[in-house]
């Protein structure tokens, strides 16, 4: 894993400091965010925000031809204190965290029938996680979910995605003042699934939001994890892990909008790739607006390419409109599991498959520990082993 960039991958990034930029990170797109799908032109693949995505594999989610004929089984298991409601689009909480940012998630917003709202009352500290299981049973579906955590409440929400589907969805997290919310979203789809979603968190005053995005499955997965701060003192930790196999397209497009003073954000995404035409895309846009004095932010993306034929596009982007910050940085690196490393380990008696496992577990291990959820830790490491075994065959 020398810090070199293998053929067929790009690792470019930019830090812009000083002048307010004419086109902030999030605005280098073909249309402004909107709730209405009609405000977005049908993409042709040359747009900045679509240039990495295989449109032909989106099954019409992007051009209005995908009719919601499919079925999705959603089950929520929650401790007693939590309320689960089904509401329609006029509910004031729906769309509160932010507008959809691309045509597919706007399509989801325009097309969903009912939204579910999961609420944790204020001052309530949950001792058990809320589990939302989303199981695809084929066909096209549009979804909308809101997780609302009241002031000074604390909750862990696990969002599990399994099965086969063509799903476009919005998930909103409304984190009340002083509240703490951890969200784990696992994309463990069947290899045929298509999943495009925006996960937007609105972080309240002195609130903490932790997001863990884990993407293993799917034919195409394209996620927009986004953070906006409603008031000062908010913190966001965004962790991600992906394991991109042969033929899979997994795209994570993060945006953190520091428009409020004295907020903190930390991003760490790591991905392993193996197999022909495995394609991982990571976009990390962080914008520190002029008003956001005292901001502290860092973002990191690392990729480990295990075989030939895989491709990584990693683009960190940090734009800073004020000098009055605590810190801002980014790092992106794509390394290969080199033949020399394999030789070194094997020359110590270690079998090739064990050598690979040692290196991949090592690569993810530090991040998994940083996530700080012991239950999840074991599940993730076990899953990583399974992914590796599938590849060896």
């Amino acid at each position, binding site marked *: *894993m*020398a810090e070199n960039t293998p053929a067929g991958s790009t690792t470019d990034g930019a830090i812009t400091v000083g002048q307010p930029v004419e086109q902030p990170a999030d605005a280098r797109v073909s249309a402004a965010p909107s709730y209405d799908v009609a405000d977005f032109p049908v993409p042709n693949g040359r747009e900045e925000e679509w240039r990495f995505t295989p449109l032909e594999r989106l099954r019409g989610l992007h051009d209005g031809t995908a009719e919601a004929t499919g079925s999705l089984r959603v089950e929520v298991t929650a401790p007693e204190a939590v309320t689960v409601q089904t509401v329609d689009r006029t509910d004031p909480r729906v769309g509160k965290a932010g507008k959809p940012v691309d045509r597919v998630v706007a399509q989801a917003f325009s097309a969903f029938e009912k939204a579910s709202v999961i609420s944790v009352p204020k001052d309530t500290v949950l001792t058990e996680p809320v589990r939302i299981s989303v199981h695809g049973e084929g066909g096209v579906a549009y979804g909308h979910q809101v997780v609302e955590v009241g002031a000074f409440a604390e909750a862990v929400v696990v969002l599990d995605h399994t099965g086969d589907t063509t799903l476009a969805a919005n998930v909103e997290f409304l984190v009340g003042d002083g509240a703490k919310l951890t969200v784990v979203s696992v994309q463990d789809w069947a290899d045929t699934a298509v999943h495009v979603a925006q996960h937007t968190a609105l972080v309240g005053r002195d609130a903490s939001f932790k997001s863990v995005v884990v993407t293993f499955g799917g034919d195409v997965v394209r996620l927009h994890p986004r953070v906006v701060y409603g008031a000062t003192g908010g913190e966001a930790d965004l962790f991600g892990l992906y394991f991109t196999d042969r033929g899979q397209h997994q795209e994570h497009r993060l945006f953190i909008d520091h428009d409020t003073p004295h907020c903190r954000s930390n991003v760490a995404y790591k991905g392993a790739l193996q197999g022909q035409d495995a394609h991982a895309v990571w976009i990390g846009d962080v914008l520190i607006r002029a008003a956001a004095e005292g901001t502290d932010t860092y973002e990191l993306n690392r990729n480990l390419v295990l075989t030939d034929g895989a491709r990584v596009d990693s683009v960190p982007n940090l734009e800073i409109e004020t000098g009055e910050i605590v810190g801002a940085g980014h790092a992106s690196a794509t*390394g290969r599991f*080199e*033949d*020399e*490393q394999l*030789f*070194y*380990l*094997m*020359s*110590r*008696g*270690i*079998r*090739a498959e*064990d050598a690979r496992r*040692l*290196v991949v*577990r*090592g*690569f993810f*291990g*530090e991040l998994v520990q940083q996530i700080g959820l012991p239950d999840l830790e074991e599940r993730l490491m076990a899953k990583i082993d399974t992914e590796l075994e599938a590849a060896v065959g």
Partner: protein
Amino acid sequence: MATLEIHDLRVTVEADNATKEILKGVDLTVKQGETHAIMGPNGSGKSTLAYSLAGHPKYTVTGGTVTLDGEDVLAMTVDERARAGVFLAMQYPVEIPGVSVSNFLRTSATAVRGEAPKLRTWVKEVKEAMEHLHMDPSFAERNVNEGFSGGEKKRHEILQLELLKPSIAILDETDSGLDVDALRIVSEGVNRVRENGEVGTLLITHYTRILRYIKPDFVHVFSAGRIVESGGAELADKLEEEGYESYVKGGAAA
């Protein structure tokens, strides 16, 4: 008794779209308990010999045989060779980010010994071996070879030698880049392993310096891909005085 027999070994590498023969018929027998120094100028093929014995995929064996107690080493994969008892201390050890020294050592000891060492005795064993090599315990938590100084890399190689207890140890320029203190510490490590009498050692070096600490039974001069002269320890003294000139074609340095 472990015996490594190399007979008429011929090896090529692919470089610049051409096949280049590096080893041109190497003959050598190393028995358990013996130490053979292989000395030769840069570029003569010493590392190629070491890598070929360990099975590095870049080197193609085009002729000859290598056996360990009659078993065909060339038919074995890299990891099989190591489990059969061949150990190569590399001239340029490789960085393995994300994998700690302690995890690496335990994984390789488990592989080579055929079972996981008992945790309690293992911890003690590693601790003692590290103390002998003047390595700080915090070393075990670092990633393999990542950010190691030249001296630390070589100590880490010899640490593995002590823990894996091979029957054939190939040390490729373990002395290069070491200051006198480090050379002494590393040599003492090699000698501890040799004292057990269970290892046959192939000590590859460019300089005679290390031979003050590690006394060879045999010295072989390597030039242009083969052994051109063999003798006892006194041959090293001759090399010390005269250098390699007389062995290199036309007297020019390679």
